[in-house]
């Protein structure tokens, strides 16, 4: 605990703990000999840029680097300036490393958030050939030209260089770390959880809130980004209820863990607020180990649904803007305290502190207690009461500002101080702790567009209008005293629980003495050298001023012109300083200058976590037909049709080319018999007294007069008169129809029909339900279809033309007692039946069809052969029902009933939809019978110059026709029906070039339809 470090002294770690830790400890030159929340019995080895170092369990990578005396950890984005660890938290802009190796390499990992584990490998980024000697640091010399708006000013001309030179060069320079480029070997999950009260943050305010709500009986989730609960208590200690804060912390955690409806989620950052009390949170389940245990995810993305939310996400300390503020060794004052107290690592032996507020002075005490030397405290304010603490120990207290920092890649060597009314002074130091005040973490409160509100007394923005059900407490609300944090947390927890109906006693709030927070804003210390506002993106105070001079005064413009706040920390450190400098330059108040819009995520989230298990072949669910595994056994090639896997063709031994297989399958059907799984077509049971009326209203043709036991082809339009879908619908009983849809539109049609039933015509007695998955259905086609059917259907069934006419439907029994439904419908143009059995018998049906059909050479065929046969017959399908065509365009205008109303009727009559020059379905036959047609090619008059004015349509469907022995196609062509026989140019600039083709009737094969009625 924080208090345990009181007796600590800076010296080499006692190496006697174990043999292993003897050498382990040697590298830890800046480790304090006792105290801290680290486990000295568990030494851990790690490497940074290949150099072996050690730390202890409980360290972060950053704290271990501090303990090892490492100052230089990275290079900035633009100028490649040497940078050190600035913070101890999620807002770290500098200490970004590549963690792990191989396929697990993670660029831009914040060293402050990476828990140390044995064998950790970290590599610095954005430098070449090494971190100390970075060639690209020459950028720094050119910094006068790399100013705000550099891109916009430089890469404007000549325009032709953009694609060839500028963009590739910028892309190479962009980014810090490099991704591995290999598939991530780990897996990620998504999960949901629910609660009454979500508490974000486990500092004193959050713990107090969770305790109150939990005791009251509410279901509570407490999310903490850190691996340990406690927030600033872990670093700052203090007294609660008259005892060390660590005692209270231990008791609070134990009590929370004992409450059955309280869930504590460690290593879980709440990153977003969405509608209906939904929060996004990322749990880093196994980021703290080299490789996740088998079957465990690396990270889990949570959606937390909460009735109330108490955000106690704390505050981020604000840097001061002065020349040299980015030198390695300049660190946030609170981070210095964290490293000293929590991690027992001293960032410097001779520390200067530069602060404009009382909180910075707490660092003075922390360093002293740890045995470090405070060489100076620089505070620009009139002396305040807080000075007594440091003054008593004889520190060199200066009223003034830091105007320069000496040092280089190895860190700070001294600071230059301008003392009020007393000239300048040089002070030797190896660390400069700075504190510019605290910015409450208002992000989560602002994601529903609530604008934070400026408060002069704390010189910071506090939450404005919060999303419904959310309150902010503690330092997130601008209340920086421990006493208020405990009290406000308790009150918020009690109230939130009561709002959710949990009314047991919340107990009493813990208490602590209040310390008054006092600050005098200091936005910009002017002087020689760069003063950084945004560290990672190298945005300096002069860039902000330049933006103002060039007219980019709005904060949103400032952000985009200078890239201020666009780095991985998303402005947590830089935004307020940037806009305060802008406010000063424009003479506006900070409140009037305002903030940029806040958007989630509050902390970086890997795309892999959003994807979760939906990657590779599980990117989306796959739907399998009942005969899938039978088809797979036969070596079928599958094609994705929406979510479905459909057999595309069934290659047999000796076939080397898909066209060979497909042609064989087509000829087998046309000359004998074949079958194809059509289970994927949508099937909807339509029942009720008004089922017929209902169908009359959704289809352009009439179904109420369809005889029982008959099927009819139907076409439905969208409200706007464009064709929506087609399919056959059968009447099974007076009040029972079975409607079919295309595979692609099964879902949308079901939605459409439900909308019609529930919203448009609630007065109709109609019930709908999908039976797509209930039936396994096969189309059996070819001149020998009846022979096959007779072999499998019970002999008592009459399958003759008279006994089972074209478009007939009825239930039949199959040999062996299976029930089935038989439909005499044809898509191929051959005599054909569809046969449906309950899905669990689909596999058996496929196998039995093979046996029954063997004497007739039965051939299973796939969707390609199905497509070829429908093109030969001129049947329209998806490529023609493409959301632009009317019934008349498809040649189905005569189906549009004039005796009734139906959806789309009125809008289909609009001028443009009935114009004579519309593109309508025609057939196409290349003049050169060896030429290949290509889908998507454009149709222009023969010999015309291709262009928008000569474009008359396009090819929708093509196939090689085994019956015509040449490529044929369907197309949508202007006035196509008047142009049969005309030769046109098929313009295909992307692929085969231009060919000539004849416009024909779309029906290429058996135009009289003799075969299917045979």
């Amino acid at each position, binding site marked *: 605990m924080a208090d345990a470090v009181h007796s600590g002294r800076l010296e080499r770690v006692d190496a006697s703990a174990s043999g292993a830790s003897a050498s382990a400890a040697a590298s830890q030159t800046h480790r304090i000999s006792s105290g801290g929340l680290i486990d000295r019995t568990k030494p851990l080895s790690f490497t940074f840029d290949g150099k072996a170092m050690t730390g202890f369990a409980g360290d972060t990578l950053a704290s271990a680097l501090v303990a090892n005396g490492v100052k230089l950890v990275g290079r900035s984005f633009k100028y490649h300036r040497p940078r050190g660890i600035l913070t101890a938290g999620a807002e770290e802009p500098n200490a970004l490393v590549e963690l792990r190796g191989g396929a697990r390499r993670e660029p831009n990992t914040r060293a402050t958030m990476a828990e140390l584990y044995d064998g950790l490998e970290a590599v610095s980024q954005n430098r070449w050939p090494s971190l100390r000697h970075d060639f690209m640091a020459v950028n720094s010399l050119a910094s006068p030209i790399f100013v705000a708006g550099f891109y916009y000013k430089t890469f404007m001309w000549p325009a032709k260089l953009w694609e060839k030179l500028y963009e590739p060069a910028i892309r190479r320079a962009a980014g810090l770390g490099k991704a591995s480029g290999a598939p991530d070997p780990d*897996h990620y*999950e*998504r*999960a*949901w*959880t*629910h609660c009454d009260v979500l508490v974000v943050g486990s500092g004193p305010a959050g713990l107090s809130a969770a305790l109150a709500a939990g005791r009251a009986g509410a*279901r509570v989730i407490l999310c903490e980004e850190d691996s340990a609960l406690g927030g600033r208590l872990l670093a700052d200690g203090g007294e609660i209820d008259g005892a060390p804060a660590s005692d209270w912390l231990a008791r609070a955690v134990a009590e929370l863990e004992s409450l059955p409806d309280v869930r504590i989620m460690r290593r879980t950052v709440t990153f977003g607020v969405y509608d209906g009390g939904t929060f996004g949170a990322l749990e880093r389940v196994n980021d703290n180990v080299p490789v996740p245990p*088998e*079957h*465990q*995810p690396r990270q889990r993305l949570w*959606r937390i*649904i909460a009735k109330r939310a108490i955000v106690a996400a704390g505050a981020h300390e604000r840097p001061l803007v002065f020349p040299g503020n980015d030198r390695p060794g300049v660190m946030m004052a609170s981070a210095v305290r964290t490293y000293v107290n929590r991690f027992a690592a001293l960032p410097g032996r001779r520390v200067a502190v530069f602060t404009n507020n009382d909180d910075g002075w707490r660092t003075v005490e922390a360093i002293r207690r740890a045995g470090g030397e405070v060489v100076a405290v620089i505070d620009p304010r009139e002396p305040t009461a807080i000075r007594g603490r440091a003054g008593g120990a004889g520190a060199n207290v200066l009223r003034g500002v830091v105007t320069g920092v000496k040092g280089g890649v190895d860190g700070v060597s001294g600071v230059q101080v301008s003392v009020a009314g007393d000239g300048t002074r040089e002070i030797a130091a190896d660390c400069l702790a700075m504190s510019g005040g605290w910015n409450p973490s208002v992000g989560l409160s602002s994601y529903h567009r609530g604008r934070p509100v400026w408060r002069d007394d704390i010189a910071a923005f506090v939450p404005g209008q919060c999303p419904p059900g959310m309150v902010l407490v503690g330092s997130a609300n601008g209340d920086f005293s421990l006493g208020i944090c405990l009290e406000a947390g308790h009150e918020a927890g009690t109230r939130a629980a009561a709002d959710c109906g949990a009314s047991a006693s919340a107990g009493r709030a813990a208490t602590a003495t209040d310390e008054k927070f006092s600050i005098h804003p200091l936005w910009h210390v002017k002087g020689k050298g760069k003063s950084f506002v945004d560290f990672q993106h190298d945005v300096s105070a002069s860039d902000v001023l330049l933006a103002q001079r060039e007219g980019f005064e709005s904060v949103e413009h400032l952000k985009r012109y200078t890239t201020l706040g666009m780095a991985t920390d998303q402005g947590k450190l830089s935004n307020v300083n940037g806009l305060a400098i802008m406010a000063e330059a424009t003479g506006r108040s900070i409140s009037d200058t305002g903030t940029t819009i806040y958007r989630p995520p509050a902390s970086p989230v890997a795309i892999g976590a959003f994807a979760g*298990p*939906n990657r590779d072949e*599980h990117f*989306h*669910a*796959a*739907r*399998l*037909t*009942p005969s899938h*595994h039978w088809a797979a056994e036969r070596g079928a090639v599958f094609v994705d049709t929406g979510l*479905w896997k459909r057999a595309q063709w069934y290659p047999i031994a000796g076939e080397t080319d898909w066209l060979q297989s497909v042609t064989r399958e087509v000829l087998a059907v046309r000359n004998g018999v074949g079958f194809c799984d059509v289970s994927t077509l949508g099937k909807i*049971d339509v*029942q*009720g*007294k008004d089922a017929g009326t209902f169908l009359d209203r959704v289809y352009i043709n009439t179904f109420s007069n369809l005889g029982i036991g008959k099927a009819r082809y139907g076409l439905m339009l969208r409200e706007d008169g464009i064709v929506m879908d087609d399919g056959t619908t059968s009447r099974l009983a007076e009040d*029972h129809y079975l409607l079919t849809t295309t595979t692609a539109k099964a879902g949308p049609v079901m939605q459409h029909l439900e909308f019609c039933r529930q919203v448009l015509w609630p007065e*109709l*007695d109609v*019930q709908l*339900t*999908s*039976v*797509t*998955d*209930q*039936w*396994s259905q096969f189309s059996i086609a070819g001149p020998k279809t009846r022979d096959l059917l007779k*072999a*499998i259907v019970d*002999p008592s069934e009459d399958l003759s033309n008279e006994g089972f006419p074209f478009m007939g439907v009825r239930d039949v029994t*199959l*040999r*062996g*007692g*299976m*029930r089935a439904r038989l439909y005499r419908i044809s898509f191929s143009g051959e005599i054909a039946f569809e046969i449906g059995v*309950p*899905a*669990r*018998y689909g*596999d*058996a049906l496929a196998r*039995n069809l093979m*046996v*029954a059909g063997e004497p007739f050479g039965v051939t299973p065929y796939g969707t390609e052969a199905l497509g070829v046969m429908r093109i030969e017959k001129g049947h329209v399908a998806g490529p023609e029902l493409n959301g632009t065509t009317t019934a008349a365009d498809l040649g189905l205008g005569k189906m549009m009933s004039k005796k009734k109303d139906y959806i789309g009727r009125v809008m289909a009559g609009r001028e443009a939809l009935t114009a004579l020059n519309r593109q309508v379905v025609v057939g196409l036959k290349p003049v050169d019978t060896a030429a290949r047609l290509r889908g998507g090619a454009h149709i222009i008059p023969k010999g015309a110059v291709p262009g928008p004015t000569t474009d008359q349509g396009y090819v929708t469907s093509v196939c090689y026709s085994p019956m015509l022995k040449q490529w044929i196609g369907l197309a949508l062509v202007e006035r196509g029906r008047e142009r049969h026989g005309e030769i046109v140019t098929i313009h295909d600039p992307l692929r085969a070039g231009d060919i000539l083709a004849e416009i024909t009737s779309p029906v290429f094969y058996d135009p009289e339809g003799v075969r299917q009625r045979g």
Partner: protein
Amino acid sequence: MAEFAWKSRSPLAHAVEPGRAGARAGAAGVTLTEIRDFALVQVMARRGTWAETARVAQQLWGIDAPGGPKAVFGQDVTLVGSGPDQFFVLSKGSSVQDPVEPLKQAFAGIASMTDQSDGRCMISLSGPRVRDTLAKFCSLDLHDSVFPVGAAAATSVDHSAVTLWRAPNADGGSPLYNLLVFTSFADSIWHLITESAAEYGAELGYAA
């Protein structure tokens, strides 16, 4: 001519490998069982005939029809709400016969019925970590106070519609949830469920 044998095949015949899956240490955290032997009829009241439909259900099975998202457990059947004025009739024992036939007369003119015995695959989930597993693919709040025994929901898993209900607790005292998924999605959803359960150790199987 030969008679044919009609071997029924579950949509999960390929996917379910009975036995232990995922983490091996300790007792299985989750038990996943495909229920193969069931008949399922969807009963949808005709317009304005919910009261009569419920009365017929009471006469046939001696229990109240679920007038909402509930599961009602009877001697021979479980009735599970599937939407406004409609429910599933789940009974043990599948057969080649159409399970709608025996109900037709009783519901004539009162309710529409559809056989869904083959349209759905049924998976039951139990075990001490069952809720942690469900949390990974089901967005619902399954806390005892919100989703007690007899609660049911029409919800979605991986963008596919499912029916979920909580049955009386399993033998070991853990909650027991039943899931009806569309047959064609069964393979994918089974994969998702078993992956979700893997870290807790899963006992996989089927009940014929």
